[in-house]
């Protein structure tokens, strides 16, 4: 797609970008005041050379003679990177020429011993030729001059003691450097100035060719190495007005160091120190809160994180989806082009999407829009529906549908047959759903206003369910920059908790026996692992579902392991989408298939709960199962406490509890793999227990709802009575046992 006229790229917004452009008086002031900090960075190439000379004048001199020497007729490896030094010399050092001449001869003799006279004579001609060629090209000479110098610097910093060794290594080094130079020259425009080149190399080194860059890079860094500002500098910085330019530069340098930590670190500095500075700088520069930056750092490597943050500063292209119920994409494109809209197909993966580059009319109010020929919709929100791929004649549930972009897409895939139940918890948002569904001519929908968590009680047996769960919105920061600062741990936990409740009720609404379906697509516009993989992993443990391929041939695989958490290995089948790599909103899509309608009892979970009751029907839990028990017990019981925690504002406890929740079972899962699935039937065999256990499960959920809203409490008196029954049952058991003991 030729994205030439994207208006969104023209207008760059956000505090960071703007501020970067404006270099006011305060930046100048800051430069003067924090001189020590910035000085090494601002040295020009010449200055660096001079500095190097100052420190080690004698070595410099000898080194240069070494460099010069091949011009007199040595190997071409040498000649290529030596010439510039000669060109530069008259400019740099007016006085050095005479004595260096004499030194050449000395060095020459030494070299002759090493290389052999015959070789020298042969290659002298070639050298001269090359010299002439290079003479015409000033810039490339400069580049080479730089490398030349770095070599000198490196040697000088190593000290005179190393000189002998250095000379022994030289031919090899030279060969390597020459090759590197050639490659670099191929890649880079020769007219780029030295500073730019350096930056580019730094960026590159972050990506694949780290080792390739290494030698050149290391030489540069010997002098111009990124230094961590000490605590004093930081204090000063707090007082001064923020200089975004220098912060940006520091971020770049810092990322460079972090991606080549072994070679570029400052002696005695920990990685953590670099990281903490980076975090601080990132949150200042992109105006995020520290929490979110830390979270993102967990998800992305540092270099990718910068890309991600940058991508969040620009808007995604406006995309529309053709309503195939009313028109065809070609006709629509023609009609819009006639109205002065500049558009293109969205991509190979979508037959209905169009990208709008720019438009002379408001794209959300054209007669075509009003006639329902298209829907304004982000590219990313097409994906979950494609993953769901609803078939004609099926019954489908969209659990949180507003504003009906995905719902109408489903309807058009189903050609207005079957039934779609479009649900949303917010009555206000449902108004747009009604409007959009009627505008697009969708006739097979029932729109209702339930809380998704109580849906299985309303109706069930759907062939497919789409759960676009409410989330923290960390994938759509470009749409809503408020997310940058407004989210904290509690928000993430809260939405993760809601998502877990929703995904269970979504699974419960599914009909596993459906011939064509039994599929659930879970998606969020968040990129947090807590809201995605973790939730799916939770569902995998709690219900008879398995992950299936989404059918989307791009996107990144979901995490199967994240920090200390280990998820089900099949989670690689889920897909993640990022703004920087796919140019669409951050998104997560997972497709699950329900393979049994029975709600699995916690394997050996319930008996363990009644620990004082000897297992009459079931053998005592074997060692494998025993670690599972606390986990499942926690799951069964804890949610109540978690809720209470939230209500009281004890967010921290909530967080820790939640961590425990997953940690324990995952450990078990790691050991047993899929085994817990196999164990379910086993539990199912023991008659008395199984009959009760699903109810206990439901009971717990019911009680969770009750905490949330009073309505629900009134809704399920049945559950209430169930609970009593269960308790009584336990009591009876205990009594019986006591009697037996007595």
């Amino acid at each position, binding site marked *: 797609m030729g994205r030439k006229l994207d208006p969104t790229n023209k207008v760059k917004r956000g505090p960071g970008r703007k501020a970067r452009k404006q270099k006011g008086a305060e930046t100048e002031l800051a430069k003067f005041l924090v001189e020590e900090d910035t000085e090494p960075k601002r040295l020009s190439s010449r200055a660096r050379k001079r500095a190097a000379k100052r420190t080690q004048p004698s070595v410099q001199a000898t080194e240069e003679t070494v460099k010069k020497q091949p011009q007199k007729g040595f190997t071409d490896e040498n000649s290529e990177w030596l010439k510039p030094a000669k060109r530069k010399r008259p400019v740099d050092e007016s006085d050095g020429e005479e004595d260096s001449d004499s030194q050449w001869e000395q060095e020459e003799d030494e070299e002759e011993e090493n290389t052999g006279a015959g070789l020298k004579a042969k290659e002298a001609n070639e050298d001269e030729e090359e010299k002439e060629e290079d003479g015409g090209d000033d810039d490339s000479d400069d580049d080479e001059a730089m490398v030349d110098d770095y070599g000198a610097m490196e040697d000088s910093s190593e000290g005179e003691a190393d000189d002998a060794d250095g000379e022994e290594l030289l031919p090899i080094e030279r060969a390597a450097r020459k090759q590197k130079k050639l490659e670099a020259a191929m890649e880079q425009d020769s007219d780029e100035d030295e500073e730019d080149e350096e930056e580019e190399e730094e960026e590159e080194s972050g990506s694949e060719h780290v080792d390739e860059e290494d030698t050149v890079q290391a030489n540069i860094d010997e002098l111009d190495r990124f230094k961590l500002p000490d605590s004093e500098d930081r204090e000063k910085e707090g007082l001064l007005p923020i200089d975004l330019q220098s912060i940006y530069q520091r971020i770049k340098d810092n990322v460079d160091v972090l991606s080549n930590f072994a070679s570029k670190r400052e002696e005695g500095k920990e990685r953590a120190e670099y990281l903490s500075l980076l975090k601080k700088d990132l949150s200042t520069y992109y105006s995020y809160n520290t929490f979110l930056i830390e979270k993102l750092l967990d998800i992305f490597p540092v270099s990718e994180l910068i890309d991600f943050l940058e991508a969040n500063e620009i808007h995604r292209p406006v995309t529309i989806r053709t309503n195939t119920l009313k028109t065809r994409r070609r006709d629509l494109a023609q*009609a819009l082009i006639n109205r002065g809209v500049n558009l293109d197909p969205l991509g190979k993966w979508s037959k209905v999407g169009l990208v709008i580059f720019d438009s002379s009319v408001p794209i*959300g*109010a054209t*007669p*075509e829009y*009003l*006639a*329902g*020929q298209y829907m304004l919709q982000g590219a990313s929100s097409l994906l979950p529906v494609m993953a769901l791929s609803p078939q004609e004649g099926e*019954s489908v549930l969209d659990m949180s549908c507003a504003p009906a972009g995905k719902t109408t897409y489903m309807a058009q895939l189903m050609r207005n047959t079957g*039934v779609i*139940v479009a649900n949303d918890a917010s*009555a206000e948002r*449902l*108004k*747009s*759903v*009604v*409007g959009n*569904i*009627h*505008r697009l*001519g969708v*006739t*097979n*929908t*029932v*729109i*209702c*206003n*339930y809380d998704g968590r109580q849906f299985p009680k*309303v*109706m069930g047996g759907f062939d497919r369910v789409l759960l676009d769960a409410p989330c923290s919105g960390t994938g759509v920061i470009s749409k809503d920059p408020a997310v940058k600062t407004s989210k904290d741990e509690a928000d993430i936990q809260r939405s993760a908790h809601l998502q877990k409740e929703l995904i269970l009720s979504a699974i419960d609404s599914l009909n596993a026996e459906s011939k064509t379906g039994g599929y659930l697509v879970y998606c969020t516009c968040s990129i947090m692992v807590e809201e995605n993989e973790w939730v799916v992993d939770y569902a995998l443990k709690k219900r008879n579902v398995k992950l299936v391929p989404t059918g989307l041939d791009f996107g990144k695989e979901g995490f199967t392991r994240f920090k200390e958490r280990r998820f089900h290995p099949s989670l690689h089948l889920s897909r993640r989408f990022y703004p920087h790599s796919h140019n669409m909103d951050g998104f997560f899509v997972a497709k699950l298939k329900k393979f049994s309608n029975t709600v699995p009892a916690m394997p050996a979970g319930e008996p363990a709960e009644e620990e004082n009751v000897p297992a009459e029907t079931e053998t005592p839990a074997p060692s494998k199962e025993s670690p599972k028990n606390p986990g499942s017990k926690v799951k069964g019981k804890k949610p109540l406490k978690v809720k209470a925690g939230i209500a009281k504002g004890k967010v921290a406890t909530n967080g820790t509890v939640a961590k425990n929740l997953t940690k324990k079972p995952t450990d078990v899962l790691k050991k047993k793999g899929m085994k817990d699935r196999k164990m379910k039937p086993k539990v199912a065999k023991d008659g008395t227990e199984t009959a009760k256990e699903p109810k206990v499960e439901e009971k717990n959920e019911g009680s969770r709802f009750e905490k949330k809203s009073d309505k629900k409490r009134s809704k399920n008196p049945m559950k209430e009575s169930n609970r009593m029954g269960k308790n009584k049952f336990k009591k009876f058991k205990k009594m019986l046992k006591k009697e037996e003991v007595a």
Partner: protein
Amino acid sequence: MRPLTEDETKTMFEKLSKYIGENIKLLVDRPDGTYCFRLHNDRVYYISEKILKLATNISREKLVSVGTCFGKFTKTQKFRLHITALDFLAPYAKFKVWVKPGAEQSFLYGNHVLKSGLGRITENTAQYQGVVVYSMADVPLGFGVAAKSTQECRRVDPMSIVVFHQADIGEYIRSEDTLT
């Protein structure tokens, strides 16, 4: 949600027949299953029987909309067609009016159609006959009532109204809240 009473059915069908005439029976007897009208919150919905069955699961206060909304009964028990019914009126419309591209936008903002914006009109349109308004590209834009018969339309001056505006698709944006 309940079926319409006798009176309500009569009022509504009278209204509908102003636009689609005897084609109304095509709406009721469809080859692809039985469709019916249901009243919910004073609004009339046109639904397939299958969907209707599913919708009965949903309690009255939680049900927002089902199938297609045709219009609503006013407090005085008159029936008012909504723009959402256009999908079913347009294919069966007996009398049509096409507006010129320049007048399209004006109609979509809720204005009447003037003679100057009139592109085409069905022959033999009587005065006060319900008509469906199309753009010249045959995209249905709304419906209204003919202010003049076809014959009169030829003679009147360019600034006189030929079609009274009743509903247009601009309402999807202008009055999204009151669609249902």
